[in-house]
């Protein structure tokens, strides 16, 4: 008998506290013991998790008005600029933004000890934050300056809106050069001295639903320790890439844009990070529940680290200068064991994404569902899948000097 379940049936069981929920790690053992058919009948939900650096993250904030009112032209939180080219007291603080006076890479490699991700973490930790804003003054918004102290509880709204999170697979980064390099994949030692990777592998959300059958627009998720939603596919969503027989992409593919109320999140799950020589960013905790609608979904969620492959990419020349190099694939079992073989040589591996934290997220979400606190949602609409025809574009090289767009307005 093939087991088929609807979202409604699964939610009824969750409400009754009877749903069988396991993590994407536990499901592997259960399938090995009971087989797919039996396990698919028994299991209702598989929970996933990931916790790693995700630069394309940030928060919209509405500060409320000063008296007199202000139309903020520029806004800074603890010296880090937030984008304010929207309504009067709305702004967007991006995880990668640096303080105005940051020494950056002037003394190489720079330290990047504070940035937008740290601001978001400090807001969540309910710390005092300095809010500075300037405006040019209008009849309706006469104030030109605000300089004060706020906390997260003082603002009207604060919601996380991350344009690209939860990358479905990622590169394994090496350095073929003969000098150490400092990248968003961490420090890469010369002559392939280490190999850096950044995915939770078998626990990672989109690797457990490779064709986005159940993860789509409107899916309710664990985000930053609270509840969030999938808003859209993420930027650079590129589902039509090479895939293994199990459907799992063999390179970075799908991405998600995520949204959620910052005020109910937890500072443990949104943590500011400093990558030496690269910049500041933020680690984001994400967990997505996958309904076991049928045996096919169970097959997807039972994927193991040894069956997930990612490409080895050189970050000395290959990545920065877009030089195509075929350096082969490597699987997450080897990466997690601490050593891979590259060109016949053993190379130590450097993780960037926290597997223990990913596991904790999957466990936490499992607990929420088991206790009936968190119900599953059917996507309102699907995001493009492997049959899409999405072109991965680059910036065109054209000569702006020869055109007279927008009356010739330009920055210089």
């Amino acid at each position, binding site marked *: 008998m093939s087991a088929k379940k609807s979202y409604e049936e699964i939610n009824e069981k969750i409400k009754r506290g009877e749903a069988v929920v396991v993590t994407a790690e536990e499901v592997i053992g259960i399938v090995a013991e009971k087989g797919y058919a039996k396990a698919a009948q028994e299991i209702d939900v598989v929970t996933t998790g990931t*916790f*790693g*650096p995700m630069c394309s993250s940030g928060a919209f904030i509405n500060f409320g008005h000063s008296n007199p009112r202000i139309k903020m032209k520029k806004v800074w939180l603890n010296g880090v600029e937030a984008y304010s080219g929207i309504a009067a007291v709305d702004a967007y603080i991006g995880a990668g933004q640096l303080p105005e006076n940051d020494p950056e890479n002037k003394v190489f*490699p720079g330290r990047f*000890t504070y940035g937008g991700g740290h601001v978001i973490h400090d807001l969540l930790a309910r710390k005092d934050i300095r809010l500075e804003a300037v405006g040019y003054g209008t009849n309706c918004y006469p104030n030109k300056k605000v300089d004060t102290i706020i906390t997260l509880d003082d603002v009207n709204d604060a919601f996380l809106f991350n344009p690209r999170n939860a990358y479905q697979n990622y590169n394994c980064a090496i350095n073929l050069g003969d000098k150490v390099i400092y990248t968003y994949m*961490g*420090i890469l030692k010369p002559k392939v001295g*280490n190999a*850096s990777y950044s995915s939770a592998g078998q626990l990672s959300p989109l690797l457990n639903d490779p064709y986005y059958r159940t993860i789509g627009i409107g899916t309710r998720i664990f985000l930053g320790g609270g509840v969030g939603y999938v808003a859209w596919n993420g930027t650079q969503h590129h589902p039509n890439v090479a895939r293994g027989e199990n459907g799992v992409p063999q390179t970075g593919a799908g991405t998600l844009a995520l949204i959620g109320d910052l005020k109910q999140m937890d500072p443990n799950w949104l*943590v500011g*990070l*400093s*990558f*030496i020589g690269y910049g500041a*960013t933020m*680690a984001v905790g994400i967990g997505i529940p996958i309904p076991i609608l049928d045996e096919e979904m169970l097959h997807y969620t039972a994927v193991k680290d040894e069956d997930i492959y990612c490409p080895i990419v050189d970050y000395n020349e290959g990545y920065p200068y877009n030089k195509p190099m075929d350096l082969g694939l490597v699987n997450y079992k080897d990466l*997690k*064991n*601490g050593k891979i073989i590259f060109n016949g040589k053993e190379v*130590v*591996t*450097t*993780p*960037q*994404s*926290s*597997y*223990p*934290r990913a*596991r904790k997220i999957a466990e936490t979400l499992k607990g929420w569902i088991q206790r009936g606190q968190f119900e599953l949602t059917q996507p309102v609409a699907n995001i493009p899948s492997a049959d899409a025809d999405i072109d991965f574009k680059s910036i065109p090289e054209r000569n702006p000097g020869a055109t007279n767009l927008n009356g010739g307005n330009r920055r210089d």
Partner: protein
Amino acid sequence: MKNKLVCYFSAAQSEQPIIYRLVKNYDLIINIIKADINPQKEGYLVLELEGDKNSYDEGVIFIKSLGVVVEPLSETVVWQPEVCIQCGACASFCPTEALNIDRDSMEISFDNSKCVVCGMCLDCCPTRAIQLHFEIKEAV
């Protein structure tokens, strides 16, 4: 030669142009790593002195002659588990397995007794959970 020293001094000594003399009379390259002077003008300076052996030795004798207490700097690495996010990046930089990943749980642990204070792990930690601490006594 090159060495790191902690110089503990009292109010009277802090009035003296110690650094100026070390540079001028002993031709030493000086890097001030840390300084802490309280309102009573007592405190310490952590210095890195670099120069040829003779001038280095004479420079140190000079500092001591002013009554400043000079001791070699002792550094320790401190790992703050409450700040660490368990990414595991540091372990692949540690030559002694003082920072080590348990491959079943993928969790990081730190064993101070294995640490040789090489400093390799400091730069790669994105949360700055690993810090270098100087052992400094109360000012004398």
